[in-house]
């Protein structure tokens, strides 16, 4: 496939790995280079292509909180479950969300109990369900980062324009730079560089990460999801460390512009406003969420269908919070692989296909 296959060239990949190792060898003071890949998609790509092992000893990769399903607070999940249980409601959501356990079970479980929960590929599919079911209230569970939120905003605007009254959104959207700041401010994990999320940056722009070199003095490389993309980003970060020239490097120029996608940003601004929101593992993070603006209040499921839920903690023994903050590797959790498996997940990092625990479980044997 175009724009994919050429970024998988194994000969080039091997040489890039050798180049990275050589640069680290020439600058022993930076060894081991401790990098965080923010995005769960990057975590899986790094495992899948075996990059961790190939760089072992020279470059350490730490997984970040870049999995929207994983960072959804348990109490927010309970809110979704309570809404799905309301009479006359069809709750629509992306596939990953239905298996995540809240304190009142998963959406999948309550579907088995009779609630109408439907999985969609696109929020536009949810809007179509609303059109086809005018006597029902269709709620879309809005989960995702800056990549996903513009499409949900656009769907909400479309519902307004076409006059489909029974479509609303429960917004649990989150913004990635505030979470990155929260990790660095907490100082729980020492990091030398950040691999910036590729598809988030397609929307917000690579310039959105300038605060990393400017405020924290660490470099950031925005990367794509193929082996050459990731190796190119790692090489850029290692080089910046060796030369002590932190900056933002966009190694995913085919998809990401410095300024991002202005149309998508306008869409976000039209429908949402920034708000403090809870993240699993972090607690409330200031200005890290998107809530629906007052002008769209009639499409805000949180206002239209108020439900009471208790604030709950993590399942006993689950260390997803520390995994999400990059403080521990999944293998350091006592439940990992023994109790918590993809078939019987305790925490969300094992449920989501892009969760760190799922990646360590799936690819762990190869290490």
């Amino acid at each position, binding site marked *: 496939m175009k*724009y994919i296959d050429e970024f998988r060239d194994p000969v080039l990949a091997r040489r890039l790995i050798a180049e990275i190792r050589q640069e680290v060898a020439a600058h022993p003071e930076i060894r081991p280079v401790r990098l965080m890949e923010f995005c769960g998609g990057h975590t899986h790509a790094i495992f899948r292509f075996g990059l961790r092992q190939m760089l072992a000893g020279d470059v350490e990769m730490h997984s970040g909180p870049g999995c929207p399903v994983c960072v959804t607070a348990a109490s927010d999940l309970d809110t979704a479950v309570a809404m799905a249980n309301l009479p006359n409601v069809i709750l629509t959501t992306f596939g990953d969300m239905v298996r995540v356990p809240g304190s009142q079970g998963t959406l999948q479980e309550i579907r088995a109990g009779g609630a109408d929960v439907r999985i969609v590929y696109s929020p536009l599919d949810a809007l179509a369900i609303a059109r086809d079911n005018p006597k029902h209230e269709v709620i879309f569970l809005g989960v995702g980062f800056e990549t996903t939120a513009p499409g949900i905003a656009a769907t909400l605007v479309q519902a307004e324009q076409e006059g489909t009254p029974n479509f609303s959104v429960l917004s649990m959207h989150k913004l990635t730079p505030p979470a990155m700041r929260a990790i660095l401010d907490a100082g729980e994990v020492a990091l030398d560089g950040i691999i910036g999320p590729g598809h988030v940056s397609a929307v917000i722009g690579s310039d959105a990460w300038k605060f990393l070199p400017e405020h924290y003095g660490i470099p950031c490389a925005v990367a794509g999801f193929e082996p050459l993309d990731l190796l190119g980003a790692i090489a850029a970060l290692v080089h910046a460390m060796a030369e002590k020239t932190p900056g933002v490097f966009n190694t995913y120029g085919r998809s990401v512009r410095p300024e991002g996608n202005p149309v998508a940003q306008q869409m976000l601004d039209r429908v949402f406003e920034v708000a403090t929101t809870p993240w699993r593992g972090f607690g409330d993070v200031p200005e890290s969420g998107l809530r629906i603006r007052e002008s769209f209040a009639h499409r805000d499921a949180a206002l239209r269908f108020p439900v009471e839920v208790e604030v709950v903690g993590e399942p006993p023994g689950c260390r997803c919070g520390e995994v999400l903050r990059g403080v521990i590797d999944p293998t350091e959790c006592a439940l990992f692989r023994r109790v918590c498996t993809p078939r019987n997940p305790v925490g969300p990092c094992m449920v989501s296909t892009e969760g760190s625990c799922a990646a360590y479980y799936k690819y762990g044997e190869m290490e």
Partner: protein
Amino acid sequence: MCLAIPTQIKTIDDNGIATVELGGVERQISLIMTPDAKLGDYVLVHTGYAISLMDLEEAQASLEAFAELAVIQEAMEAEEVARMGDPSGAAEA
């Protein structure tokens, strides 16, 4: 969840809805966020919306930059092989 796939626009209708192929299946996607996208262009698709217009020149530039790093490495590898072939370590001598 932020998975997005580059794919080529096969048709566009008057409402900015395009037909593309995703994973072997034809799908309708919205081009509302990539207003400059034309027939035959590649766009990055996420949950039914194109979120970025792929830039061919930038793709080439990245590949060339990677290749440049690799060329330096290739030269060093060649040097290494030459040195190993000569026990004195002075390949040029």
